[in-house]
């Protein structure tokens, strides 16, 4: 049995499907694959006759547990699809079918996979930005280079998720940056500054906070005015939409 290994990264699920189908046409059947969290995938192919009779389709689902994964696999199997993923740890799910049954009924439900991927990427972005910020604060308080190193590593990692989330937003024809995301970030600043000011009022770390009061007050006010500004913008937009009427005609 000839086995081949390939590692590749794709800009979209469509491009990946096209590539897999081209390999299938040449008799290469995907037998297993492994995702890393940064978009790269290791594929294992074997030479099989039946590869030429089928095609691949990719879905993206974040499973809560093993039961959800088993349910998904059971539904696909009965629908004529062979799921290649082996556990709930996969979120990109590649399936193979030799039947005429489609995996998605319409383009609206097909774009749900992009929506779910966007959601996961922005959640990851949050986690990494959060850890980077905590390490940054750690460096500031303890003045130890190790904290700074970790802060840089996590900040650099978060870039990948931020770019992915923003790019998918464009694909889904939403605005490049999700305003709700920015608003949450700004509330974070308000909370950060507010906590420090409250701490100093309660005599906790008072000298440190008062010596660095600039670093606490500036984010606090940026947060306060930033959220007000976004509310103002959203309000304006809603008003405009209301005056222009609904997009779908009311028959």
């Amino acid at each position: 049995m000839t086995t081949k290994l390939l590692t590749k990264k794709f800009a979209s699920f469509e491009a990946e499907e096209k590539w897999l189908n081209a390999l299938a046409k040449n008799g290469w059947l995907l037998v297993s694959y492994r995702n890393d969290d940064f978009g790269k995938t290791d594929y294992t192919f074997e030479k099989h006759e039946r590869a030429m009779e089928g095609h691949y389709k990719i879905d993206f689902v974040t499973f809560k547990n093993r039961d959800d994964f088993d349910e998904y696999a059971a539904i696909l199997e009965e629908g004529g699809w062979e799921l290649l993923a082996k556990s709930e740890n996969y979120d990109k799910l590649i399936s193979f079918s030799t039947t005429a049954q489609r995996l998605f009924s319409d383009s609206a439900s097909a774009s749900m996979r992009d929506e779910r991927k966007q959601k996961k990427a922005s959640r990851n972005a949050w986690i990494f930005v959060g850890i980077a910020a905590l390490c940054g604060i750690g460096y500031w308080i303890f003045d130890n280079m190790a904290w700074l190193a970790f802060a840089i590593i996590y900040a650099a990692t978060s870039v990948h998720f931020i770019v992915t989330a923003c790019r998918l937003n464009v694909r889904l024809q939403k605005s490049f940056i999700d305003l709700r995301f920015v608003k949450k970030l700004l509330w974070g600043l308000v909370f950060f500054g507010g906590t420090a000011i409250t701490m100093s009022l309660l005599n906790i770390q008072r000298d440190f906070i008062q010596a660095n009061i600039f670093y606490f007050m500036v984010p606090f006010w940026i947060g306060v005015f930033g959220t007000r500004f976004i509310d103002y913008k959203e309000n304006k937009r809603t008003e405009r939409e209301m005056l222009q009427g609904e997009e779908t005609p009311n028959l």
Partner: protein
Amino acid sequence: MYPLSEPTFLILLALSDKPMHGYGIIKAIYDYSEQQYELAPGTLYGVLKNLEKQNLIEVIGTDLDNRKKKVYAITKIGKDVLIEEQRRYEKLLRYVQKVNEQSY
């Protein structure tokens, strides 16, 4: 409330008849519609999870033959949404018929 997508409507409609597991819904829609509608499995799963999140349907147990298959049932909110959607479709159909009558 935005109009529901076609697969979402079909799934709610099927579940308003009786509780069913995932693939059972596809089969029920296929049979009842006399092979007019055949939902794809990926679409079905995505819609089920969305409906569950919006509390329009709920998991009431697992299939007796296969523990992996969850059985879904429509909720009270789901029924209300379905009735509202049905009215919307009826309204649309009446409008279409009116236009057609005029053009003949």
